[in-house]
């Protein structure tokens, strides 16, 4: 394993030192990343978090129009309750705080505990579970939260910035999650610094369908195929679960090790697929937004827009990883 790190157990701390040095708009205290200017009285605070290794998620989405704080855990390990409690208290502007939680047992348990233990702050929670690769049944932990997290954080963040109350901000977050689906495909595994080797072995000839964002193997392994075919597999899976129609918000997301050139090749196929179904790509993102360390591969996330969601998506945002309108 070759990585640009100093030690496996200091990666997250060292990276946060870099984040603090690179972004004067952020302040980092006790492994929590806040907006430097602090909470705005009367504004609902947005807190998210989860294991590290998915950068820019969540740290790169802290700033005006999006998150108020992010709690990065160790690599692929959800943060413990303490930093979540600190973040929740730290961003409260008196209007309460929304926890945006990706649906993983660890994230759910730790955010639940934090919500119970925090004092004097009204807390609402929204679970993001957009990954159609996982059957949502009694026999699983439920669908994983992946690419749609970006949609939820951006749109809920925009509504909070407008001064909407906690109930409404939570409601729009849930609405975005319900209208969003994702599917991911890996060309390679990824190597957590502490593990020192790839989480799973994937031969040169195969790709892994329906992967999550923690290097966990997917549901099936098939021979490598063209971008056209792989994009088709991902889009079919999404379309089967949530028929594409009207205006779409599309994220073609890189898993961390895939060059942008290839992501644009995939995006062309995704856009063509959507048009084939009579839908229209109204807004889009192409790049590395919800990654899995150095994994090569992509995921597609789709949200069915309406005028309100489109307006909130277009609202100004100023974070390290997402910025427009200011």
């Amino acid at each position: 394993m070759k990585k640009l790190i100093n030690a496996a157990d200091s990666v997250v701390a060292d990276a946060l030192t870099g984040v603090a040095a690179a972004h004067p708009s952020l302040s980092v205290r006790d492994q929590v990343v806040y907006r430097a200017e602090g909470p705005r009285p009367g504004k609902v605070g947005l807190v998210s978090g989860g294991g590290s290794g998915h950068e820019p998620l969540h740290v790169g989405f802290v700033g005006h129009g999006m998150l108020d704080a992010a709690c990065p855990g160790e690599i692929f390990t959800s943060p413990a309750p303490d930093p979540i409690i600190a973040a929740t208290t730290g961003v409260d502007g008196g209007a309460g705080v929304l926890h945006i939680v990706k649906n993983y047992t660890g994230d759910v348990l730790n955010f639940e505990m934090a919500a119970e233990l925090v004092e004097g702050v009204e807390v609402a929670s929204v679970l993001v579970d957009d990954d159609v690769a996982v059957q949502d049944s009694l026999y699983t932990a439920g669908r994983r939260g992946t690419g749609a997290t970006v949609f939820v954080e951006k749109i809920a963040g925009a509504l909070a910035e407008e001064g909407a109350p906690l109930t409404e901000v939570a409601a729009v977050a849930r609405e975005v999650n319900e209208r969003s689906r994702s599917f991911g495909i890996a060309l390679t595994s990824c190597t957590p610094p502490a593990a020192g080797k790839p989480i799973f072995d994937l031969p040169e000839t195969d790709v892994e369908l329906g992967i999550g964002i923690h290097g966990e193997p997917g549901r099936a392994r098939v021979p490598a195929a063209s971008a056209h075919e792989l994009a088709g597999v991902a889009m079919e899976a999404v379309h089967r679960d949530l028929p594409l129609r009207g205006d779409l918000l599309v994220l073609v997301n890189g898993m961390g090790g895939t060059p942008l050139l290839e992501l644009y090749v995939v995006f062309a196929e995704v856009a063509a697929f959507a048009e084939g179904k009579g839908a229209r790509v109204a807004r889009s993102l192409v790049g590395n937004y919800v990654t899995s360390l150095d994994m090569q591969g992509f995921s597609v996330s789709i949200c069915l827009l309406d005028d309100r969601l489109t307006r909130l998506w277009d609202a100004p945002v100023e974070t390290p990883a997402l910025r427009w309108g200011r």
Partner: protein
Amino acid sequence: MMDTELFVAWFEEAARLIHRDRDRLTRLDAAIGDADHGTNLDRGLTEVRKVLADSAPGSATEVLTTAGTTLIRRVGGASGPLYGSAFRQMGKTLTSPVTLAGFAGAFEEGVVAVERLGKAALGDKTMVDALAPASRALALAVRDGVGVRKALDQAALAAVDGAKATIPMQARRGRASYLGERSIGHEDPGAASAALFMEALATVAG
């Protein structure tokens, strides 16, 4: 009689075993999870050991609640809150002096806490599949009037068997459940670490 020192020794030995098997646990987690179980628990128990050394707890209850709270605060992931809540619950239920019967009852409460928090049942391919059999072994030992050492040995054996029994199971909880049938054929890392906890207790009591 199970005195306070025994419980402190339990976590010291558990920390040692988990550190020793850290890479094995991480490898098991790599197969059906995200390759961090060994690092998570190692980080947590190193901390527990420190905290217990500094705080010099005066009772078994204090040892268990301190350990549980530390695991909740320091591990993160799924196993942190689950193990942490288990030990906190045990601690809350224990009354001193700690008899085997008292411990068996408290242990069962701890397992129930994990099942409740994790919405997990026997056969879901989780730590419960090692913890529940261990609890049952303790209960039987109490019924049969077996001594502490023998009882804890039987609990440890039951936990190891329970962990091995997760290999053919299809996971229904935690990350491994995402793999569906592909989770079959691998030992659950949390069940494996639970077996180490029970082995540690048997060792220090022996």
